């Protein structure tokens, strides 16, 4: 993130300009993408689950969208209680929801996601990773670069008995990863700056507990989603592999991740 700031600063400062250009790109073979992150709001009443198994296919970079992967068999197995939760696709959307509402029933279990698609079986495991509540969110009046950002101040208190990794969701595709290495057991306050947000809009901040591997995975993905190819302050980007394996043909590995997070959220209306 600090590198991002540098680049931004550099470009802004030196009248550097940005323009959209046409680039001819190589293409790679199509891969199955498994997007299966579940946020469990155990302390809400009623308890809530955020998430689904979203299956899609990779596509050439300049395609307008990535196609859904339809007609897969999807289920999650509670390996400890030996229970199986079937998922079904919602109308050819590639989005698979549990058939019953009781998934997952046991916080301590190890869960295994199985996807059977186009003759290949894909598997991955996850445990529910604990999190902490958000103490408070409020609106501040600081700005960062341009002077018209909206500051949101987030407060939460870390659990001092564990090494924690968090994934914050601050909007539809705004994420932030943080770990408690430098604030273990403390109340931690940070500011997030929104660009172009209008008064009256409600924003929801969610905190998800994640493990070290998924934290690293998301950290890299967030960077790559706005990645600068070849910029002087960027490292060479590479394809990141997640925790799903193709058990039929291991070489044809899928993209994506299966993970379960305990989650908390708080909302606020922008003034």
């Amino acid at each position, binding site marked *: 993130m*600090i*590198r991002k*700031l*540098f680049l931004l600063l*550099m470009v*802004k*400062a*030196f*009248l*550097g*300009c*940005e*323009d959209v*250009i*046409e*680039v001819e*790109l*190589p*293409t790679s073979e199509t891969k199955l993408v498994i*997007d299966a*992150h579940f946020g469990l709001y155990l302390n809400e009443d009623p308890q809530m689950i955020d998430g689904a198994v*979203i299956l899609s296919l*990779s596509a*050439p*970079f300049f395609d*307008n969208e990535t196609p859904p992967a339809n007609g897969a068999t999807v289920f999650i197995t509670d390996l400890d209680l030996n229970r199986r939760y079937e998922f079904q696709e919602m109308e050819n959307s590639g989005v698979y929801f549990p058939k019953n509402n009781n998934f997952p029933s046991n916080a301590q279990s190890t869960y295994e996601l199985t996807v059977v698609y186009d003759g290949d079986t894909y598997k991955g495991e996850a445990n529910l990773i604990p999190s902490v509540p958000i103490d408070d969110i409020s609106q501040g009046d*600081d700005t*960062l*670069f341009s*002077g018209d950002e909206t*500051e949101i101040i987030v407060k939460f208190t*870390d659990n001092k008995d564990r090494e924690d990794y968090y994934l914050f969701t601050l909007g*539809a595709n705004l*994420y932030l990863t943080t770990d408690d290495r430098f604030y*273990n057991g*403390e109340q931690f*306050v*940070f*500011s997030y700056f929104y660009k172009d947000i209008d008064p009256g809009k409600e924003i929801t901040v969610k905190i998800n507990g994640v493990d070290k591997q998924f934290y*690293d995975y*998301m950290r890299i*993905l967030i960077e*790559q*989603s706005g*990645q*600068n*190819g*070849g*910029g*002087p*302050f*960027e*490292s*060479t980007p*590479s*394809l990141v*592999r997640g925790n799903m394996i193709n058990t039929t043909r291991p070489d044809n*590995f899928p*993209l*994506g991740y299966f993970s379960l997070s305990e989650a908390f959220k708080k909302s606020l209306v922008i003034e």
Partner: protein
Amino acid sequence: MRKLQKIFILSFIISAFPLFSQEKFTLSGSIIQASSNETLIGVTIAFPSLGTGVITNEYGFYSITLPKGSYDIVVGSLGFKEIRRRIDLFENKQMSFQLQESSEQLKEVVVTQKTDQLQLRKPQMSINSLSASSIKKIPVVFGESDVIKSILLLPGVTSAGEGASGFNVRGGAADQNLILLDEAIIFNSSHLFGFFSVFNPDAIKNIKLYKGGIPAKYGGRLSSVLDIYQKEGNSKTFKMSGGIGAVSSRLLLEGPLKQEKGAFLIGGRASYAHLFLPLFDNKNKAYFYDLNTKLNYKLNDHNNILLSGYFGRDVFNISENFINTYGNSVFNFRWNHLFSDQLFSNLSLIYSDYFYGLELDFVGFKWNSGIRNFNIKYDFKHYLSNTFQLNYGVHNIYHYFNPGEIKPNRESSGITADKLTDKYANEFGAYIDTEHSISDKLSLQYGLRWSNFIRLGQDELFIYANDNPVIFNEEYQIYEKATPIGAESFKRSDHLATYNALEPRISLAYSINDKSSFKASYNHMVQYLSLLSNTSSPTPLDVWAPSGRYVKPQLLDQYAIGYFKNFKDSEYSIESEVYYKDISNRIDYIDGADLIANDAIEQVFLNGEARAYGLEILFRKQEGAFKGWLSYTLSKSEQRTPGRITSEPGINDGKWYDSAYDKTHDISLNTSYELNKKWSFNGNFIFQTGQPTNYPTGQYQFKNLVIPIYGNRNETRLPNYHRLDLSATLTPRKNEGRRWKTEWVFSIYNLYNRRNAASINFSQNEDTKMNEAVRTSIFGLVPSVTYNFKF
């Protein structure tokens, strides 16, 4: 104690050389600039009748021992009036010469290295030197003349682009350059992330870049040595000079401490704090400044003392939310002592420090990191005869590394203070080097450096199962950090790792005739420190790390051969070289490695190798109203990190891939034309193959994010880079005969306004939700005016 022994052995070797016949006498002294009493580096004292000569050293000293007799001598350096004199050498003689600047002082040839017969015969190759006045003539962006930007015009030297810090020599990484300012190591050579270098051109006397055939005197870095000497100051009269530019202003004061005995120099440079203000509101500041100081005092004919200092900082303050400060400080005490007419010595005591500080108020922390070192050097030059010169010395550096420290920046911050483990090391080197003319045709320079590196004890060192900090996850086919099984604490006096190396260096020159020569060189070098950086050019927050239990020293073997020719009374010259280099223990980082505040860097890299080879051609015209050079480099630079065992793929499937600084073609043209005394013009043209990068081969969606899919490393390239710069210098006629002299430099950078891509960003447009390739280019056409004055 052991070190004393080493010195003893060294002196023993030296005293073992036979004494000389009594028929020989020594001529020695200094060459100084008449106007300022400043010593001159690289002046030739030639004895045409003998076809021999000597060149002044870094402190302006020369010594030559010849058979008794009367000789005609010629003392000269480009830009100065030649002195011709007949001397009788019937006893040992000390003669100092004062050189007058030639009347067309501004006409000084850009590359001062005199390519006369003597130069052709010298075994040194792969060296370029530039004088400060020539650096100031090269058109640059915003008219801010710059040492590093100037050397980029030389063959074999490139950078990662505009706004990229550091430079790459012969396909080497930026951290493989040994940058010395008055013998002190500079760890970060850039201001404003690389837009400008930290060296104030007003305070600089001379720079020399060694790309290969590096003498045994230098060690510790693989690719190059950039040796920069600051001016000593004018010991005759008080002088003031300066300039007002588009980005910064400069002022330099110099004058005598005691007439012709001692001088001071103080130079400052600062950019304007409002540099960014047109774009941001007034709460923001971004600026840099630096200060160069120097004192010298000549105690007597045999002793000279020099004190020099450098202090520079960059400061960014964005809404008090993001405060970033970094820079170098250097302090240096030197003592030149003549043991005899033939034995010159210099003792240097150097302290140097690089500091990086960052405060992020919106997260509530302060961060600082840095490196500090104490350096003692004792170097001798022994001018034994006109065919044999011996250089020897010892260097010792004590390094202290602060990889990072975090503190809460205010009461309410949740950050708890923490510190990454400090690291300590000692680096020692002893060398002996000879410059030996075997015959009229053949001369050699050969030497040996012995280096010893001790990683000293630290508080906490992680220990891993099977000593393996990186594990390969067979299931996901990825490399992962191993979890330490414990940590060990050591006393400072403990040795965590010790490395020793012998570094042979040899170069030879064979004169084919008076006009052309063939040269060859081999050097073996060892580098014990590396900059932890996985970006294509270093960032100010990258930290230096010493070799130790997990990081092995990098080793280099470089071979080069070259052909050198002068035409038309040395008006034109051509230098061509071919080199090959091979580097082992070049580390590369595993996919997704995060290096910032990483306390266990061993968990994110694997050991590999690198190689580079190329052809360099430099064609120059050195005299006349129209001067300049054309350089062309054809090269390849690649690296490879194979799996440690066969079931592991390594990085990039263990295949060779282009390093981030691989540039196939690199062409630079630099010309200057002196129209009349009033106007002179300069032009540059630069062409470089685009820098290697990764373009996406596809896309996928994860949690509503559009993620590009990347293939193997550095398989594609940014578009080619090229631009044309022009500048015109106006020296008003009224300057003549008055003390206050002025000069206007008008320049246009990137004349045809090419949008050279600094990066291409592949992402989804936030508004249209369409994927696009966005090119970021830093400088379009940039006109500027600089006003320089001298008093």
